[in-house]
């Protein structure tokens, strides 16, 4: 029996889709059988980030409407044979699917796969309710900004009300230099407010943008710092204890010089 994990945030643009793609690939690289579900009906883009846009024949709405068999709609990833994508419909809206249908779909998929990762749309309306309906765990993605943390707090409240007990946090786009200067919320600030377990810390990394545009998730890139963070998170999802990476390391010449001369430490 697989785990059904919803990736959610409340606020848009904090990295839900990027996180979903990276964790899906990370788990597949680790040999797990994974299905990624794009629950953002009408505004799909997980397929683009995964570089699988051109392979979509059937989507989520076709499956729940019975227009195709579930197996036909699962798009096999071009790199990792144990990774599948169930794309969202682009021409419909959130009301095309009901929470009961989503719960039933997740229940079917978990019989044959290790992880079902659901990319939740922004907001707290129908799309959110659909996305969490079949989930038994949740990962809340937030950036260290007041608005993002406020929305994440709202989402955690709704997840708790929906009796999803296992809720963990990924803090995305961290800028150690800004935190040091007191210009960005610290990890402690965020955790104080949200009071949930931290699953991962992802540094702000330009390579994510290029990876996203190429449709090649950064988790497979050994030179990407964000990729390393996602590899660590993948391990933690599988139950392995991995220390949090030092966000400061490998900064550049100045960091190296500071290390050598122990300036500012």
């Amino acid at each position: 029996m697989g785990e059904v994990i919803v990736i959610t945030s409340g606020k848009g643009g904090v990295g839900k889709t990027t996180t979903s793609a990276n964790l899906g690939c990370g788990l597949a690289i680790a040999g797990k059988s994974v299905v990624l579900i794009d629950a953002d009906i009408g505004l799909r883009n997980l397929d683009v980030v995964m570089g699988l846009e051109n392979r979509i024949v059937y989507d989520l709405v076709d499956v729940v409407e019975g227009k195709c068999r579930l197996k036909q709609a699962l798009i096999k990833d071009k790199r990792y044979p144990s990774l599948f994508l169930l794309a969202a419909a682009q021409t419909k809206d959130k009301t095309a699917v009901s929470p009961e249908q989503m719960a039933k779909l997740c229940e079917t998929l978990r019989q044959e796969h290790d992880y079902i990762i659901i990319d939740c749309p922004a907001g707290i309306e129908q799309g959110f309710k659909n996305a969490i309906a079949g989930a038994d765990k949740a990962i809340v993605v937030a950036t260290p900004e007041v608005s993002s943390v406020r929305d994440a707090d709202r989402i955690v409240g709704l997840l708790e009300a929906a009796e999803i007990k296992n809720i963990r946090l990924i803090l995305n786009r961290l800028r150690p230099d800004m935190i040091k200067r007191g210009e960005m919320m610290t990890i402690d600030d965020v955790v104080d407010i949200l009071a949930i377990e931290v699953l991962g810390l992802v540094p702000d990394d330009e390579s994510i943008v290029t990876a996203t545009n190429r449709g090649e998730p950064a988790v497979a890139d050994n030179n990407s710092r964000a990729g390393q963070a996602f590899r660590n998170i993948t391990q933690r999802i599988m139950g392995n204890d991995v220390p949090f990476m030092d966000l400061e390391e490998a900064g550049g010449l100045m960091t190296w010089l500071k290390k050598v001369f122990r300036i500012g430490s």
Partner: protein
Amino acid sequence: MQKNNSVIFKGGKNGIVIILSEYADYDSIAESLREKIRSSSRFFADATTTITFKGKQLSESEILSLIDIISAETNLSISFVEDLTGTFDIAQEKRDEVAALKKLKSLEKMPTDGAYFHKSGLRSGQAISHSGSVVVLGDVNAGAEIVAAGNVVVFGAIRGLVHAGADGDDKAFVCALSMLPIQLRIADKKTYFPAELIKENKNKIDPVYAYVKGEEIYVAPFTN
């Protein structure tokens, strides 16, 4: 007999005033109190009233014991206990604070029926609206709301909106382990907490309570 004069009862406009002799010790005060109540128990019928202590300064536990005597001997329902005992050479400001604090400390002697206990924190978007007092065991986060006709006690940080005495009771108070609200309201008064102050105090546990005095909301440390 000196003993009989160590406690004097007076009917004040806000309930019963009990004046304690400066010259009697606690034991004789307690005994005298019991005697006087017994001999005039009919006078005390089963009404709801507030009690104000004046005169000799007693410790908090002694005051509470006196209240115990009153509750044991009468059917009085004590809605409020005010402690104005002690010498009068402390600055007025300080005395008000002490009095307000003692009011809080005697909370356990106040009727608790109708209080709402919330056994976890409140997250953004969650709200409690209640016709009595509200007790929250956890943080009240930004975006959360508590509106209570009575008092609000938060065993955690207040970051959201709290309104105590929402029906206009300006005797209502708000207390919290960490007071960082965006806005705080008691009865028809409201106050803002400057962002710098919130930033400065965000990681501190600094138990405080807020109450209304005159036209303003005051916040005082919860230390004694």
